[in-house]
């Protein structure tokens, strides 16, 4: 469950200001965030993930007030409870597909990389249609495959909250459907909540709710 109350956020030195008086997303809900470019969709996801901290108000994820956590606590909370699929792929070019999927486990001590995690990574890769490509380097993958790797990486810790920032942007319809299908499947399997930013109106009917952020920006 995500609860946002009296949230105000602005980037230092910028005119941009996001104000969300109230927003509640229930557990297991699949929400689409839409809005014009610059409406604050990515910013809202970052606030939910604890990557950005609001100047006032609060974001609670599963009852945990993100603003009141220290940097380290926020980071650890994010790593263990939130899966984030970034707008830009953010794959590491020097790691192969499998290493990219398990990368979070190698850089944060909250997560332990063991045989079970590796098995889960392989299962996720199989579900994402990447099974034969675990040893491939990112440069050897198509755009759709790279995006699927990023999704697998975000889903590997089995997060309760999945945040996807235009995860299907710039993909062909086949890949869009495949990635969204993967996100939905994993969300449903784990009973997780999904908040996805999208510009693709064709996909909106597949979400439980659509939130237009244009209403929140001032």
């Amino acid at each position: 469950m995500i609860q946002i109350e009296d949230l105000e956020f602005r980037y230092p030195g910028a005119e941009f200001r996001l104000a969300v008086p109230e927003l509640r997303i229930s557990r297991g809900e699949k929400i689409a965030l839409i809005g014009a470019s610059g409406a604050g969709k990515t910013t809202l996801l970052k606030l939910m993930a604890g990557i950005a901290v609001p100047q006032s108000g609060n974001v609670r994820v599963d009852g945990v007030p993100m603003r009141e956590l220290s940097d380290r606590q926020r980071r650890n909370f994010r790593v263990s409870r939130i899966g984030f699929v970034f707008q830009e792929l953010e794959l590491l070019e020097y790691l192969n597909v499998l290493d990219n999927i398990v990368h979070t486990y190698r850089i944060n001590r909250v997560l332990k990389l063991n045989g079970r995690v590796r098995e889960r990574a392989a299962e996720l890769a199989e579900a994402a249609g990447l099974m034969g490509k675990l040893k491939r380097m990112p440069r050897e993958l198509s755009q759709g495959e790279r995006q699927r790797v990023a999704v697998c990486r975000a889903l590997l810790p089995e997060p309760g909250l999945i945040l996807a920032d235009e995860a299907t942007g710039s993909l062909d319809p086949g890949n869009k459907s495949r990635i969204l299908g993967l996100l939905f499947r994993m969300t449903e399997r784990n009973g997780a909540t999904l908040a996805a930013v999208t510009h693709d109106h064709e996909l909106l009917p597949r979400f439980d709710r659509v939130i237009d952020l244009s209403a929140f920006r001032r």
Partner: protein
Amino acid sequence: MQHDFYLAWRYLRHNKIRSLILAACLAMITALPQALHRLLDEAERWMSARAEATPLLVGAQGSAADLVLNALYFTDAPAFISMGEADRIAATGWADPLPVYARFRVRGLPLVGVTTDYFEFRGLAPAEGVLPALLGDCVLGAEAAERLKLAPGDVLPTTPENVFDLAGVHPLKLKVVGILAKSHVPDDRAVFVDLQTAWVIEGLGHGHETGPGAGRADAAFAPLSGDVSAYTEITPDNLASFHFHGDPADFPISAVIAVPRDVRSAALLRGRYPDSEAKTQIVRPLDVTRSLLQNIFRIGALFDAILLPLGAAALLMVALVFALSLRLRQREIETIHLIGCSPLTVVRLMAAEIALIALGAGTLGLVLVQAVRAGAAEFVRHFVIA
């Protein structure tokens, strides 16, 4: 920690050229001074061993270093003394004289006139054939034989000192009678003849034919004057006709190795050459070599002094390259921050990369030093001394 090194290794492997260059630079910085000192130590050991094996040396007045280099390493002779000097040393009864005449070169290699005692003194024995016993015979050092591609039974023509001097000494065909076993000393690169053969090469002795038919020039003869032709090859048939003009005691040699019977004899012999105004001098090759080595070590110290700031500059360059690469990797660092990496972990990852590069550099440096160590003797022999 294990993950840090794994990720660092993957990154370095992905950028292997850059990583290798960095490691190689660091390896060179650390290994170069050690390699240089290893070479200097080897040069000292090698030169000292040769000098130690040569107790005393008598030669013409002048540079003691030139005298030692000529008698021990067969470099160009600075000046000559007469054979009478060797006789005088023998007459004292304090030392055995071993005359050395290292003046000529044959196909770029030193041609050294010695007596048979020289081979025994230096512990040189033929691996093939025999030692020179007759006029015109020569024995080749192991490397000289390889370089000249000659074997016992072959013929080696001497090189005229001046090809444009038609009245000068004609080349003499030396008969190769033996190849010395490899001894890893300058003797390996020399062609040895009997002293008398060296004097024939110089033109102080010759064999010739007179009368009708003489005066011609062909493969076996060279015209001397009028109806006299000199032999250009010494054979059993013409050996008896070879003779020397003048007193052999006046014939030139470049040095005499004096092998004293004991310490007292050595001191007494040295006492005979006190006058710096005299035409001859006696030196202890070890002292002269040490003095030469002092200069080499001064050069070594100079290298150290130069290498220090150079090394510091190279280290700064490496640091700069690393700092620049960090800037280039800003995006990657932001990425790993976003997916949950703490700033401390980023520092740990970078430290792991530096540690791996340092490990690679250390290994490479060690290999370099070991390679220099293994090849130092050969290197010194070929490039520093030869």
